[in-house]
């Protein structure tokens, strides 16, 4: 239990690695399902570019995570979101409705999860 709490603290803390998160609505959780276009494993934040079907169009979402340093200590790797991977991702969306969000958790096709997927 203590370890689980530590992981949550790490995740929360690392998301605020270098800038304020005021552009994201921490009171809302949006679930996106799509295909990874690109995974930017770089400091100060990792970014997942996710292609999401929206009606007849493909909408590209920019999803911001923590630093690769801390995420690597929580099981993440540069290959975690390989291009072409089908995945569902929960985010705190941007307040202005634009296709961007702050990473909360992800669930892969095989049922494995990473991050704080169980948060509603």
């Amino acid at each position: 239990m203590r370890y689980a709490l530590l992981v949550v603290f790490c995740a929360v803390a690392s998301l605020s690695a270098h800038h304020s998160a005021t552009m994201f609505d921490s009171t809302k959780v949006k679930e996106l399902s799509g295909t990874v276009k690109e995974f930017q494993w770089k400091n100060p934040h990792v970014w997942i570019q996710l292609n999401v079907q929206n009606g007849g169009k493909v909408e590209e979402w920019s999803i911001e995570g923590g630093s690769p340093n801390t995420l690597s200590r929580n099981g993440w790797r540069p290959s975690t979101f390989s291009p072409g991977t089908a995945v569902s991702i929960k985010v705190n969306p941007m307040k202005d409705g634009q296709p961007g969000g702050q990473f909360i958790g992800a669930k892969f096709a095989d049922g494995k999860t990473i991050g704080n997927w169980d948060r509603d």
Partner: protein
Amino acid sequence: MTQQNRGWGLGARGSKRFSAFAVALLLSVSADAQQPGRSAEAVALPDWSGAWQMIGPTVFDTATVEPKNGRAGDPGVRERPPYTAEYEAIYLKNIDAIKKGVFPDPISTCGVPHGMPRAFNVPDAYEFAVTPQQVWMITENGPGIIRIYTDGRQHPRSEDRWGTYTGDNIGRWEGDTLVIDTVSMKGWTEKDEILDRTGLVLSADAHVVTRLRRVDASTMEAQITVDDPKALTKSWAVTKRYRKLPAGTRVYDYACGENNRNPVSETGRTLTLGSDGKPLDKVTK
């Protein structure tokens, strides 16, 4: 080989002077070794090896945060330092700017350090290099280095120092506790330094004393006491704790400018760039 052959240029008279100087130097070192803060060579230095991580969120004073468990950066979250009326007004102004989305974190430019005492309140890993003369606190985030001189030196005279992000840090050992005395921070004078993203700030007159120790095998603790004649009506005490990360943990390069997709606009709004490098934000000013 004589000293002269080595080119010291000492004759018989010079040798006597050299001997007198050497004796004086030895006496000086001996005397210094008995002074507080100079005794590091004589005591066993504590083992602070490994990597550590702050426990809890990046709220500086979690004991007084409102609402309870509030996150730094969320609108309306605040702490209760014993602010003077002047600094309470500054804090409220900062809180209002956060609500409007125009309170940029100085470090978001990827060009300046967190500074002190904020260095005790950052995410990612910490490391400590403990030597008899100096202790370095190294934060992975930033990255940041706090240099703490434990060789007995004092702070420079006020006319010989100026405000820097990390300030001037001198330390002395009280058993296994490192007592760090910090002055000459930049503070909020030119909006250089914050303590956290609730908008918490101090003046350039702040004086911080931190008692840093390892309380058990897996926990370090920093008891931070802040005095600030401009910003505070009385001493403000804050305790932060750090948990040891698993043995063998690696600490990595943190190049903030590597892929910063959150630039700050001229109006102080932190933007979010899409993969094409253009702001996603509807409002950019």
